[in-house]
């Protein structure tokens, strides 16, 4: 037990001395959340529309007042408005010449333009109805039926980031730290002492996983503090997903160490695997936007199920049996892979 505690303490010291590790654990979640939060979460702000009215008409002006969510900016002529749109000072422009509307869109805002175009058409429809003394004969009402009442963009990304923090920590605990110790020849002398291989592994694993859990919790706390995002947490389910995620991720790290045996390469391979999972798991880029071949590949990767599992545990989505079984399978894979790793590498003659 004393040896195990000594390993724990030494690993903690190693972590605090390694500035890169410290950065990735503490600062990276903050950077990701703040940047992505402000860039994409900020889309919920009012849309800025620049308008030019060559011949102001009561009905056209009144139509704009039907959209309280818009921030309207008036321009004296079309050229000035076009420049403001091109320089992104306004989101899009509407020019009314008395006969027709011209919708000015920024060529570079490829992803935003469909939404602006939809909004522009909605304004024109409202103007037509006003001019005819009518109101819309159909009233479509958006009804949010998601599990969480106050769901927003953050509610989907934060659980994904938490899952990724644990996955990354687990992979690097084995493919980075343990493989690194083996490659630098530290593991063998340590295994030759009375300290058992498993207590050494547990010491390293516990510290790395503790950091992974901390990083996940840090993401959660930052979302709450910076953006006021709150969740309905199911603690038992969260613990379950965190544990299977940690076990499975360490198993993945072990798998990487089996496959990539060249010194220095296991950690790099672990990093590549993490990046692939990040892009294909539907955390940053919605899953339905991926081409079907990448979707099929993404569904084989554990990150997809882990992200969904964390979303379910935080009350964002309904947790289905498929996610539960896939997560259990991932945890089981982790146990088997770690057992094999212990048999292969945690012996003095193999270390």
């Amino acid at each position, binding site marked *: 037990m004393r040896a195990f505690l000594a390993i724990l303490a030494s690993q903690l010291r190693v972590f605090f001395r*390694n500035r890169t590790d410290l*950065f990735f654990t503490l600062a990276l979640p903050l950077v990701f959340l703040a940047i992505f939060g402000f860039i994409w979460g900020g889309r919920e702000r009012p849309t800025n529309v620049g308008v030019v009215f060559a011949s102001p008409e009561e009905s056209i002006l009144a139509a704009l007042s039907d959209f309280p969510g818009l921030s309207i900016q008036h321009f004296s002529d079309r050229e000035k408005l076009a420049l403001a749109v*091109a*320089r992104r000072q306004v989101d899009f422009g509407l020019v009314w010449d008395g006969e027709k509307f011209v919708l000015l869109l920024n060529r570079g805002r490829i992803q935003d333009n469909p939404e602006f175009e939809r909004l522009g058409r909605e304004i024109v429809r409202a103007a037509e109805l006003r001019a005819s003394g009518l109101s819309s004969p*159909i*009233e479509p009402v958006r009804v949010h039926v998601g599990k969480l009442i106050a769901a927003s963009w953050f509610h989907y990304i934060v659980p994904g980031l938490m899952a990724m923090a644990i996955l990354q920590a687990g992979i690097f605990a084995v493919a980075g730290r343990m493989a690194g110790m083996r490659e630098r020849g530290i593991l063998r002398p340590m295994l030759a002492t009375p300290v058992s291989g498993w207590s050494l592994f547990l010491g390293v694993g516990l510290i790395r996983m503790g950091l992974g859990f901390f990083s996940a919790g840090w993401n959660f706390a930052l979302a709450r503090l910076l953006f006021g995002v709150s969740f309905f947490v199911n603690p038992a389910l969260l613990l379950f997903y965190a544990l299977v995620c940690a076990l499975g991720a360490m198993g993945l790290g072990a798998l990487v160490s089996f496959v990539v045996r060249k010194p220095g390469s296991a950690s790099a391979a672990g990093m590549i695997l993490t990046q692939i999972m990040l892009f294909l798991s539907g955390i940053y880029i919605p899953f*339905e*936007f991926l081409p079907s071949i990448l979707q099929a590949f993404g569904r084989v990767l554990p990150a997809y199920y882990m992200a969904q599992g964390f979303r379910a545990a935080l009350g964002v989505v309904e947790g289905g049996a498929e996610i539960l079984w896939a997560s259990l399978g991932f945890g089981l894979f982790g146990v088997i892979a770690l057992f094999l790793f212990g048999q292969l590498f945690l012996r003095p003659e193999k270390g």
Partner: protein
Amino acid sequence: MKAALALGLSFFRISLRERESLFWFWIFPLLLLAFLGAVFGRVEKGEMDLVVALVDLDCSPLSQALCDVVREIGGGGLFRVVEVPEAQGNPGEWAQREVREGRIHAALIIPRGFSITLQGFPLSGSNPAPVEVLYRRGEAGSSTAASILYEAAEEFGRAFLAEAGLLRREIPVEKELVGGEERPVAYVEFVLPGIILMALFVNGIFNVPSAIVLTKQMKILRRYFATPLSGGQYLAGFALAALLMSVFQVLTIWALGYFAFGARVPLLRPEALLYLLLAFGVSLSLGFLISALSRTFGTAMALSSLLNLPLQFLGGLYFPLAFLPGPLRIVMALNPLTHLAQGLRSSLGLETVSFPKWIGLLVPLLWLLVSAVFSGKRIRLTEE
């Protein structure tokens, strides 16, 4: 000169032989371009794997006409329409469950009495006919599907009034794209200059500290300087290798964009070449600055990582940035990548810069000069 050339070639070979640098400097930018091009190129064409359900509880000719309009929109590949299973006792509840549990992105519910309300609307001026669009707020796919259904319903209402001869005024709408040159721009063309800048930037801020801080820490540089090689020759050799790598990186990224996605990005324009050269200089000098500020390789990597993602994302390399909150706007304005990305894209006719042109040149130049002067004074190639 001969020594610098030999060193340059050896650094270049090392970058191809080391698996990690081979991946991050050579393969990753290509993978990123291929990934973003494949994903957003598809979204741009309106090809998304969205699934919507139509629940027609009215079963009237008007409600069926609305369903046909939705089906027609979906026929373009934007979404797939699923029908309510026949065995469903309550189709509304079924749709709600399917949307809630994520099997369907959005559902249009046409209630009973829709047709009567709609037909009576113009005459009596009664309430409009309600329809519900079920979706999951916050989820990108579901919100997109809901917006499409919402607009389809509104457009149907407008068409109904027009057909009934009640819409006294129909206003035509023209669309005009502004900024950049008069030609359609695909997302892959927009992102390609961003990927090139990312590759140059990553090359500079990660590769320079490896060549200076790591080799110094591992006492490799000391051995170099036991030969007649001078510090200046070493740095010149390294800069030469970085230039060679950058030229090859730009060429491979351009070639992938051109041949795989048909991206037409005229990089040989003089202004574009100027911005590329400036980007190379800024990235290299930032790498030297990080090396000058770091005593250990760990510190250098932490500094590089700290700069890497924030500057890339706040520089608008992958997505156009519009409105950011105050402090981030300042970071964006001071970020050399913002001006390099905007300048490069503007020179390629892809967009109009949001800052005056002289600021777009001044900010990267200041970064280059300050980093070069500071690192020139502080950098040590041998241990103290």
